[in-house]
């Protein structure tokens, strides 16, 4: 498998269209799932996906170790999403201000939701919350790393994560209230 990927990458570096398509097909579903987590809508996710793969094919020479490719392509997609929404990290939705007030956290609230349902809820968050939430809760970034990525302070990163959780819990309770055992 690793050998095949190595050959595929070499062919892609030479600009062979068939190999590019094969590489795309191999990673498309995982990368589209990732894009959906960071995007506000399916259309945005498709835009990120397109821009991300263009970068992948144009910067493929940077990949020397095929084993590192899955992590690298994921990183490229995340960076593309961050570029798209970075400027909006500073914007504030009036709805968010109302929703983030005094929410109590509920244990195990994510257990009863499917991945698709979770992603659908994450998409409803404003970019500044969604990016911090994904980077911290899914990618495992520290607040220090997030602050550097987004150009915000560590305190802001923490507060955004806290607010993101609160908003998500409220939305989950509102949408799936009966299914959640308190």
């Amino acid at each position, binding site marked *: 498998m690793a050998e095949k990927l190595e050959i595929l990458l070499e062919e892609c570096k030479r600009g062979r*269209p068939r190999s590019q398509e094969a590489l795309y097909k191999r990673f498309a579903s995982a990368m589209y799932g990732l894009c959906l987590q960071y995007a506000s809508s399916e259309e945005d996710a498709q835009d990120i996906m*397109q821009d991300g793969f263009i970068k992948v094919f144009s910067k493929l020479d940077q990949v020397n170790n095929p084993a590192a490719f899955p992590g690298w392509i994921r990183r490229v997609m995340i960076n593309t999403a961050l570029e798209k929404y970075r400027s909006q990290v*500073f914007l504030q939705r009036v709805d968010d*201000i109302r929703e983030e007030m005094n929410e109590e956290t509920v*244990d195990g609230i*994510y257990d009863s939701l499917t991945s698709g349902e979770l992603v659908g809820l994450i998409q409803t968050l404003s970019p500044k919350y969604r990016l911090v939430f*994904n980077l911290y809760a*899914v990618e*495992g970034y520290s607040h220090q790393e997030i602050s550097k990525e987004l150009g915000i*302070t560590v305190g802001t990163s923490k507060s955004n994560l806290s607010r993101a959780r609160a908003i998500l819990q409220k939305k989950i309770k509102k949408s799936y209230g009966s299914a959640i055992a308190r």
Partner: protein
Amino acid sequence: MNEQQDRDKGILKDRLGDYRVDPPAHVWASISARLGRGSRRKMILISLSVAATIALAVLLGINFLQWDPFGPMETARTERGSGIEDGGSPGDRYTPTGTPASPEPASPEPASPEPADRPGAVAGPQEAAAHVEASVDLAEKAGIRPEDVGIRTEEAVALSDEAGARTDEPGAPSEHLARAEKSETDESIEGTILIAQEELQLDVPSGSEQENRDPRWIVGAALSPIYSYRDAEEQLLAVSSDYERGIISYAGGIHVSYRTGERLAIESGVLFNKMGIAISAPGVQVFKQSFDFAPLRDETGSSNILAVSNSMGNIVSQSGDIYVNSYKANQFYELNSSAVADEVYADQGIRQNFDYLELPFNVRYSVIKRDLEVQLVGGMSTNFLLNSNVTMPTTEGNLEIGYLTNLKTVNYSGNAGVGMIYHLQEHFSLRLEPRFRYFLNSINDQTLPVTRPFTFGIYTGLNYRF
């Protein structure tokens, strides 16, 4: 609480870390098309570059070959000097190649009793006739009537005709030559030639001679007040136009141009442009302290990085005490009830400044060539971003409160203008040139809406030609 967060983190990572969804088929179609377009675009760019280089090389090559720094008049002067005035032998004169002519055919008598020291001597009848005709032509060009200097056209024509009739008589030239030497008009002819040539050299050169003698290079400096503002997407303008307005600043630099033809010139140079926009109150509110509207502070005790998106980029405020109402600033909470707008700064607004180094490449075409020359100017510029900052007017001058992010460092602009050049004397001229410049690409990177700045300036300066 932390345990719960860690548990949630684990669940989310499991659920979403390998979340897969098949993308729609058109996504690959778009990627594939863009990949193909990219390579095609690259090929087009390479082809255009090669074509432009070849065109430039051909243009410069043609000009180089055509450019004779001495010009035809200088050549004429050399001929004259090597012959008549230098008192050279008659056989040295009026030979097409400039080498001594073949000696006359053997004759029992010398062609002339004083062959070398007579300035008025000519080589033979044909040459003499051609000489007469040329002198008449030159005199006419100079506006001198032949009669005024003792040449009668009939005589010249008769002499020419006679010379033509004798072309086939190898032994006869001496007779005609003697006649030519004795002609009273001869010295007048030479005098006319000298006068006419002097006249032509000094005052009335012909078109091609004038072109070759004119200076081709122009260097100069120009300075202009400029009005700068921006064009943007309609939806962005709807939001921001109420508060944003253009500013007056300045631009200036040096330029050099090369005349490639009678009316065409190419120009380049280096210009500094100070551009920007102003955001007026009530678009802007300034608070006394940054924590007035940032109640959640980081470890340092204050939120020290605040940014505001507007039509020209993201303003990152260094002091953190600025709030732009119409663009939703990055404050994460509503203002503290105790937040107090600074009475001094609240109504001042802010100004975004962009400093660019402009490298223009323009083509100049002279539509009127007189003492006041009028030129149409058009071309492109590459603009390098040198600096950006955000300032606020205070009683103590402009206070720098931040800078801008998400700006492209290299931009391209199109230029169009009308140049009015007043020629003071041979080498110096004054320039007055209204010029419009419009950015061809967005000043922002792709994370922000498309915004294209433009400037209008009236450049004035001094040119030196050589």
